[in-house]
């Protein structure tokens, strides 16, 4: 039986060697473009700004091709001139010139997105009720419930009452929130609890995620929780013993289990045994772990050229993976400093002693010497707890949570005319003490959720 241990390493290598020119363009050009057209469609967040010129980095869209064709020198100095030169062109051929697309919430490189003009959208409580019951209760509305809504004197209050019941229900807590966590946890039954080769137990990840995301808890604990939640929903504050005894010989191999990391070193979802085992595996520098945390909790996918904030004199190639190559530097000057703080947390440990002591996912200050050399979002961090603290208090974290909940509800991204509502959503989080329930209550009040064209 082979453990699929090589795939994340391969992915990391592939990511590290993406064509660099286009990615570098995204990193530096976004700031210039959004400085010139600050209210344009894709300048609401760094995640989106690439879309102005790229269909999917590194591929350029029609507008990006036009920009490239008009560059008269290096990107940092020539981009502004190129943008000005094509303001009166219609790059995507949709009948609207580029400047107007920028000014009126169009997209100059995507003919499907044009300035919408005046949109008269009205809010429908009936539509909102049907949607919220389906999304948050996993139910269809009944005729009787629709009649009650019709008769209600305060229809908005009626909706919120129904939503409160949904968010307290089993469907939301034990099914919908778990599906929302899938992409963050990426469970793999064969190597999880009860599998043939057990590297960790991902059930703890689901229980913790669903707990923090429900009942008005502070969602920032996704990156700071030093406790775990057991399968009965009870908080466990100390180390947690493995569920299965170690097995090295025989048909099943059980390397690890429980949550052996000392609580003072925990940072919520990004220090569970599963997260560290599955993403770090055997890596000296846990790039895969850091990039997954960055992607899933700050919305920045380095593989797509997002969230690049290069650190001077990086990458140093501390683990000798040859990442100083020109093609690799553009991402690794951000990724490697992002990863240093994870380097004192063990991945999969395979010596007999380590298996017997359940060392996978534990803290080991001597594992590698790079812990205090890290950076996130351009700021130095002394360790992973510092990393997580800076992450959880950032706008990126708030935007990512709000975007996740928006997508979960609407099965699509925020549309240009909805950006005002979306901005209000994520900016409300500190006032709401980072309660996801309160965020959802605000979400169902938006015209994006319950509106239709009049």
């Amino acid at each position, binding site marked *: 039986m082979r453990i699929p241990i090589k795939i994340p390493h391969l992915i990391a290598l592939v990511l590290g060697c993406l064509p660099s020119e286009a990615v570098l363009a995204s990193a530096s050009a976004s700031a210039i473009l959004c400085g010139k057209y600050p209210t344009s469609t894709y300048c609401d967040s760094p995640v989106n700004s690439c879309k102005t010129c790229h269909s999917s980095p590194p*591929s350029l869209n029609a507008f990006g091709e036009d920009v490239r064709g008009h560059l008269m020198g290096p990107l940092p100095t020539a981009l502004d001139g190129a943008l000005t030169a094509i303001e009166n062109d219609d790059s995507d051929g949709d009948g609207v010139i580029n400047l107007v697309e920028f000014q009126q919430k169009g997209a100059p490189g995507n003919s499907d997105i044009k300035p919408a003009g005046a949109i008269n959208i009205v809010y429908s409580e009936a539509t909102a009720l049907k949607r919220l019951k389906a999304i948050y209760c996993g139910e269809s509305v009944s005729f009787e419930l629709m009649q009650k809504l019709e008769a209600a004197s305060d229809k908005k209050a009626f909706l919120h009452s129904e939503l409160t019941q949904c968010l307290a229900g089993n469907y939301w807590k034990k099914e919908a929130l778990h*599906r929302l966590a899938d992409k963050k946890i990426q469970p793999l039954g064969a190597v999880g609890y009860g599998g043939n080769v057990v590297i960790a137990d991902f059930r703890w990840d689901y229980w913790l995620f669903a707990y923090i995301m429900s009942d008005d808890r502070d969602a920032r604990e996704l990156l700071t929780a030093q406790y775990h939640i057991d399968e009965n929903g009870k908080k466990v504050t100390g180390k947690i013993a493995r569920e299965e005894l170690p097995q090295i010989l025989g048909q099943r191999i059980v390397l690890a289990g429980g949550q052996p990391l000392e609580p003072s070193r925990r940072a919520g979802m990004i220090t569970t045994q599963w997260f560290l085992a599955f993403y770090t595996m055997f890596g000296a520098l846990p790039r895969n772990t850091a990039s997954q945390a960055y992607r899933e909790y700050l919305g920045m996918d380095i593989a797509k050229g997002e969230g690049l904030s290069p650190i001077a004199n990086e990458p140093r190639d501390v683990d000798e993976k040859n990442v100083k190559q020109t093609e690799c530097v553009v991402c690794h000057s951000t990724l490697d400093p992002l990863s240093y703080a994870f380097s004192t947390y063990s991945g999969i440990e395979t010596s007999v002693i380590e298996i017997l002591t359940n060392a996978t996912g534990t803290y080991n200050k001597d594992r590698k010497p790079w812990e205090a050399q890290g950076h996130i979002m351009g700021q130095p961090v002394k360790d992973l707890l510092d990393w997580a603290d800076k992450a959880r208090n950032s706008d990126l974290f708030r935007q990512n949570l709000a975007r996740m909940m928006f997508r979960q509800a609407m099965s699509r991204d925020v549309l240009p005319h909805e950006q005002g509502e979306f901005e209000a959503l994520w900016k409300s989080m500190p006032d709401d003490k980072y309660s996801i329930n309160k965020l959802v209550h605000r979400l169902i009040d938006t015209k994006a959720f319950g509106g239709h064209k009049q």
Partner: protein
Amino acid sequence: MKTPFLILSVLVLVSACNKRPKWVGWKKGGANTENGTGQEMPTSPAAGETGDMAPPIPGLDLVWKRYRAFEHGLVQGLALKKDDFCLEIGTQACIDKTHLTVLGGNEPYKAGQYERAQTPTVLTAVAVDRVVLSACSQRLEIDRKAGATAIVFKHFPLAGSAPTPEQVSLQTKELYQRILARNPEEAEIKAIHTLGAQGMSNDRLALMLCYAIASSSENILL
């Protein structure tokens, strides 16, 4: 019953395959007429090649009623048992297993599906048909045996003389309320009467009423 569905599925797939993917935003210009139609061919791929759907028109987008809510609507509306109202080959749960993905769910643990489909796929309609037909058929058989104590199909006898227009209207109203949570409009009742005038047997008419209402887009897209 399976063969027509298979044929339909194949036809739908073949039809889909005949349509070239739309490369939104191919860069205009460049008079390449290699396709023989005289139309300009693109010279480079541009926006949209990631497979993303075109964004919805503001205010006209709909929300997909995914697997659990869809299931709940049928189970609640037709008073069925969740565990066995639809089983493929008599053993495999339609919602949680066989058709989960195309009905908007995902199975992460064994299948490694960490994300759900963003929009319904070409196979969603086929899955909806099968689930709805199974649910309606099961309710029909239960009510046939129940006779006078039938719960859903109770407004005209399932065998015997043809139902009156009034009986058809009552049955229509019953199904609209149970499945779509509203009363039918006049035009909809007229359309149903057209169906009723086709001379089919009473039980077939009842089944078709249920199928038509429960598989309507209004029951899938909110």
